[in-house]
């Protein structure tokens, strides 16, 4: 630590930081615009001016930009010095000269960094008496609204979008006072991280268009800490609501996971909670074959369930990777672990089990996104992160800068000096290798790619392991280009300080995961200390579901077949998305009775005798276990309205109703977690993912509503002038009102970022132990999988080479960031971005079958007929075809599989 002096007081500061960062960490209110903790400094806005003095003798000093001054021992500066303060106010005056006075009608108003900084500098009198500049705004797609007149030219947007996220369709154009940030022409912003512009922009140029459709001010929204339900990364979010509906999702900082950024699927997918096909009332289907449904009162539904249970010879439960740990566990407890299915078909189940095993065996436990961001050599084996775990792709994009920066450590350019370090790195990229059947959106960074069938990808992985450590078995009959690539990858990983192997279940191949694990262990055996295994899983709670060790769906089919089971309870799972429709139909028709719980109407709920309306993430408390085995609690921003209940609570009521458990045994989240901890020791730490419901600060709950919440007493006055009693929350230490503890809650309970003078999300600086560091009091969540020591040997079954097959194509799943996720695909804004159905084909194969781009291709995959237009992918190897997974209304489950072309 360095000792610095600010306004005559000595402080300790981190010498790897700049003065602005240090001042903010120390709690000073120093205004800034162009600097961003994740983007670093460029010194463009000139807002963070302070006066720096050479030494104690120096009384004159000079005005410097704090973001450009490295912290060093003996640094002396003044923030309050009048000339510096006057200059900071002048910068605001300049910026305001063209900033419209439209705060009252601006979406950013009330949570605007520019407003905050204006107040902070004290500028208030306008001397600029000219008309303001007028720009034309652009249509930027369904996510982002553009209002260029508000722009203060801080350059953050293009620095994030281009430099950080790799997007090329948002740039700075024109010069001097007309610098314009936009696209070359109107159109959808292509990059899947565009939503971060909403939070990156210090004012209202880029705002959330989905929020605009049901706008509410920040101070009018009731929010809670949540966890994104759209993939397994588990980005922390803040979900904000008003009048019973979710209005927006904001980033909630987690040092090890999402940091400052979310992907667009996570930010804009929330409106599924309000979609027309939401289930809000219990439904009865008197005749499952005919599409007749009646809305029932909960008591009536429960009565029906009691009947079903009393008639049943055996009840089995189908869990779900998108349901919370509590709901899955409650179901397992209801039906008994022998009759509990993970809800996955064998092909996905086996891959997930292999992944979980690899995670448990990983030398230091599974890696986090922060590890990925800091890795200096990466091998992606059988994953397409941009589409399967988008936020991970953003982390990996940063990783390629590490090796060039490390190699030139002699330059001594501080890491925060963004402009200099980017110029310094130029186009050099550290090693990132991608093995995936088709092209990916990280290819522009890749030092090498291997595009092949899943088994060939696994063989490459084993070859890398062998090249690192000859103790790993050799792969026979590997072609020259693959073995060259394997040795290049091996060299890069061995030379790295922090090598990382990324792998997952995307191709449903246990062999790929085993190969990735073999590589990590080979690295560890040969002495690479920091080697890390990063597991990618598809859904929000895939790992948590797998840890409950249910059986695959096919086992259940056998149980139905044998008559051991005749009744199913299906938890938040549309099994038509998991198995081909004929197979699913068989399961459904073999089940005499089906009880389904879900928040959305699906093909599966349509065929259930009883459907119970479960809360979505917005109406539930629960825990998801993310891709690194971190249990994370999400809290409901909305009290469940009407008949909606959390799925685990419904299951608890079923258990009480049917006599499988005592009354009230399951009506509290903490009781479910206690039982879970007792039954599943590995999952026990999940209890500590967040404070329990009894937790208080000074005897007070933590408010979901901001202190400035308006309408506390009038929000429902159009219905009744009597103020209703606020909803109670028995499951968390949060309250639904603004009453409660006014200080900062523990990180797991942060419902909004606010601090005096800081109304925008940049108040986050005040919630961190140091700027861009861990949350105060530690980051939330509990790691469940510590990993094993270096000696664990992964299994090493190397697949045989994929034989040439002229007759059929190998259909492999490919993924779409917008479309492959079931829930977000129901959000209208995301739905606009979902591509039309397609089958990706190599040009040579297309030619062979006389097909061109756009022509209709008919495939027979097992018993399933698939028809879709051809999309040519020149990167796809011949013999393979790619079929997007999980597309709404067009789901082709159970891949990879052989497909024959039918004419």
């Amino acid at each position, binding site marked *: 630590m360095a000792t610095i002096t600010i306004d005559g007081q000595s402080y300790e500061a981190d010498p790897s930081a700049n003065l602005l960062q240090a001042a903010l960490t120390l709690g000073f209110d120093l205004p800034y615009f162009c600097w961003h903790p994740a983007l670093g400094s460029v010194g463009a806005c000139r807002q963070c001016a302070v006066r720096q003095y050479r030494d104690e003798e120096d009384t004159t000093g000079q005005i410097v930009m704090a973001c450009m001054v490295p912290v060093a021992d003996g640094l002396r500066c003044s923030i309050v010095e009048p000339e510096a303060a006057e200059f900071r106010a002048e910068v605001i005056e*300049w910026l305001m000269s063209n900033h419209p006075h439209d705060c009252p009608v601006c979406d950013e108003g009330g949570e605007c960094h520019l407003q905050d900084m204006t107040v902070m500098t004290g500028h208030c009198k306008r001397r600029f008496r000219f*008309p303001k500049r007028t720009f034309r705004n652009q249509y930027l797609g369904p996510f982002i609204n553009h209002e260029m007149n508000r722009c203060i*030219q801080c350059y953050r947007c293009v620095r994030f979008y281009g430099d950080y996220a790799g997007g090329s369709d948002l740039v700075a154009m024109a010069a001097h006072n007309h610098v314009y940030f936009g696209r070359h022409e109107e159109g959808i912003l292509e990059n899947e991280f565009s939503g971060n512009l909403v939070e990156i922009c210090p004012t209202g140029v880029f705002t959330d268009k989905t929020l605009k459709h049901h706008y509410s001010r920040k101070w009018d929204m009731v929010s809670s800490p949540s966890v994104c339900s759209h993939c397994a990364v588990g980005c922390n979010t803040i979900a904000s609501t008003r009048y019973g509906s979710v209005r927006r999702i904001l980033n909630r900082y987690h040092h090890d996971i999402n940091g400052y950024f979310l992907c667009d699927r996570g930010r804009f997918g929330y409106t599924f909670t309000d979609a027309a096909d939401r289930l809000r009332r219990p439904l009865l289907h008197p005749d499952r074959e005919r599409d007749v449904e009646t809305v029932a009162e909960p008591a009536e539904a429960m009565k029906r369930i009691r009947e079903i249970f009393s008639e049943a010879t055996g009840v089995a439960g189908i869990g779900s990777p998108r349901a919370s740990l509590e709901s899955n566990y409650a179901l397992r407890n209801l039906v008994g672990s022998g009759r509990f299915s993970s809800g996955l078909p064998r092909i996905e189940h086996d891959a997930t089990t292999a992944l979980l095993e690899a995670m448990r065996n990983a030398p230091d436990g599974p890696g986090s996104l922060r590890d990925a961001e800091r890795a200096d050599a990466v091998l992606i084996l059988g994953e397409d992160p941009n589409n399967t775990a988008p936020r991970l792709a953003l982390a990996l994009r940063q990783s390629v800068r590490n090796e060039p920066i490390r190699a030139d450590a002699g330059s001594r350019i501080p890491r925060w000096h963004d402009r200099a370090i980017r110029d*310094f790195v130029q186009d050099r990229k550290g090693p990132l290798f991608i093995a995936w059947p088709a092209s990916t959106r990280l290819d522009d960074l890749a030092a090498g790619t291997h595009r092949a069938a899943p088994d060939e990808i696994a063989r490459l992985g084993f070859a890398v392991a062998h090249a690192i450590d000859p103790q790993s078995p050799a792969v026979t009959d590997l072609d020259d280009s693959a073995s060259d690539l394997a040795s290049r990858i091996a060299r890069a990983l061995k030379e790295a300080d922090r090598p990382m192997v990324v792998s997952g279940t995307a191709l449903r191949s246990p062999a790929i995961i085993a190969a990735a694990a073999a590589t990590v262990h080979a690295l560890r055996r040969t002495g690479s200390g920091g080697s890390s295994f990063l597991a990618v899983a598809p859904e929000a709670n895939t790992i948590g579901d797998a840890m409950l060790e249910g059986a695959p769906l096919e086992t259940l089919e056998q149980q139905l077949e044998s008559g051991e089971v005749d009744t199913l309870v299906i938890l938040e799972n549309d099994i038509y998305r998991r198995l081909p429709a004929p197979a699913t139909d068989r399961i459904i028709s073999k089940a005499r009775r089906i009880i389904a719980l879900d928040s959305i109407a699906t093909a599966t709920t349509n065929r259930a005798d009883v459907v119970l309306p479960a809360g979505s993430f917005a109406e539930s408390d629960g825990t998801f276990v993310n891709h690194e085995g971190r249990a994370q609690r999400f809290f409901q921003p909305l009290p469940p309205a009407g008949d909606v209940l959390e799925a685990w609570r419904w299951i608890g009521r079923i258990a009480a109703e049917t006599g499988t458990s005592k009354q009230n045994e399951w009506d509290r989240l903490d009781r479910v977690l206690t039982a879970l901890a007792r039954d599943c020791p590995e999952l026990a730490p999940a209890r500590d993912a967040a404070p329990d419901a009894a937790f208080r600060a000074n005897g007070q709950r933590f408010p979901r509503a901001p202190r400035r919440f308006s309408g506390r007493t009038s929000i429902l006055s159009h219905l009744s002038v009597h103020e209703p009693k606020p909803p109670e929350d028995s499951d968390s230490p949060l309250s639904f009102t603004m009453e409660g503890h006014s200080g900062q809650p523990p990180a797991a309970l942060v419902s909004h970022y606010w601090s005096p003078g800081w109304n925008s999300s940049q108040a986050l600086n005040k919630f961190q132990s140091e700027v861009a560091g861990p949350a105060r009091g530690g980051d939330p969540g509990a790691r469940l999988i510590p990993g094993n020591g270096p000696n664990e040997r992964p299994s090493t079954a190397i697949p045989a080479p994929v034989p040439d097959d002229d007759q059929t194509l190998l259909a492999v799943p490919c993924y779409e960031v917008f479309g492959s996720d079931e829930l977000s695909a129901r959000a209208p804004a995301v739905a606009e971005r979902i591509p039309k159905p397609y089958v990706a084909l190599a040009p040579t194969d297309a030619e062979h079958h006389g097909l061109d781009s756009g022509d209709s291709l008919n495939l027979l995959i097992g018993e399933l007929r698939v028809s879709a237009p051809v999309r040519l992918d020149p990167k796809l190897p011949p013999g393979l075809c790619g079929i997007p997974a999980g597309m709404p209304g067009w789901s082709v489950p159970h891949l990879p599989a052989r497909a024959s072309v039918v004419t």
Partner: protein
Amino acid sequence: MAISEQRVILKHVDEPGYDPGIECYVRHGGYETLRKAVGMQPEEICRGVEVSEVRGRGGAGFPAGMKWKFLDRKSGKPIYLICNADESEPGTFKDRQIMHKDPHQLIEGMMVSAFAIQAALAFIYIREEMPQAARILEAAIDEARARGFVGEDILGSGYSCEIVVHRGAAAYICGEETGLIESLEGKRAYPRIKPPYFPAALGLYQCPTIVNNVETLCHVKHVVAIGGEAFARTGSPGNTGTRIWCVSGHVQRPGYYEFECGALTLGEMIHDVCGGVHPGRSLKAVIPGGSSAKILRADERFTGKLKDGTEFDWGLNDIPLDFDSLMACGSMSGSGGIIVMDDRVDMVEALANINAFYSHESCGQCTPCREGSLWMKKITKRMAEGGARTEDTDLLLSIGDQIAGRTICAFGEACAWPTQSFVSKFRDEFLAKASEDSGKRKGLRLV
């Protein structure tokens, strides 16, 4: 008193029969210095340039030898030489003469410099508005290459270096050396922040780079030709060699004139060399170093101490034309563009014109000049068009004062100095505008 020019750079330029072709240049002893240079040790040339004390002719007047000394030779990266031919300071037209009329002198100067710093590649970054000069240079480089003065194995020395002519994209900021480098790299010409960007260490493509002005590079040739010590004896101490002054505005004989530094005064330049202001007019003010230099009033007294401690008390006409004297008078010799104004000039209009230029040329990277220069322009434009307000004068000064010294590059000073100096030195004229105009204004105006 007739004062005759002391032409060195422009020695042959404008001589009858002298053309820009290589034959003519070689006939006049061209490329002999390069021949001499490649026979020397590179370090010896660098030392010569250092001893010569030749200062940069682009505007800042930084000693070229010192700049070369900062070159990071240990990096192992290629070294680049860039000739800054983006001459765009209003009132400056000297480099254009060299490129148009004696291109081989520049090429020879560049090759001598390139050899001295052992550059791997040399660039001429030329202003887009000089397409003819670019064509002349390209033709000249071809001629020189054909004779072994440029390219592979120069004059059998084993040293090879190419020259690439790169046309700019018409932005003043590309004359700022780091902005130029960014532009040359294909990016927006946003000046870089120093530190860490000292081009001598981290320049073009983050390699050690020397950026010198056209005239400076020509001087290097003469330094090598006569030797550093001999060069240092020309001009005045610390202000060595000759300079080309570009005189424009209200004088009878505007044009470019080459003199040794300090060999004559500003008065001699205006009155004797350029024939003074037109009959019936009187001298009102002079901008001595391109439009960004602070203006000097004709009736101003300049007192103070020079670097060597000698006290001075000068009128405008007494100021010696060199780097240090003009600096001591609170202005600068800048790019050598002397703009003379007689009593016809409306100072508010003149400043409005200058402000219009700088607000248009602000690159837009940092706030003070992007927003401030436009604001100053809007105020002066309105004042010039009959809408002056009493508060405008002080407002202009307050904006200018906040810009200067607080921007990423020196453009902040370039756009603030005219306003600061015009308004403070001709305050009465600015205030008078306001009282004139407030009488004229009827009713409330929105803007």
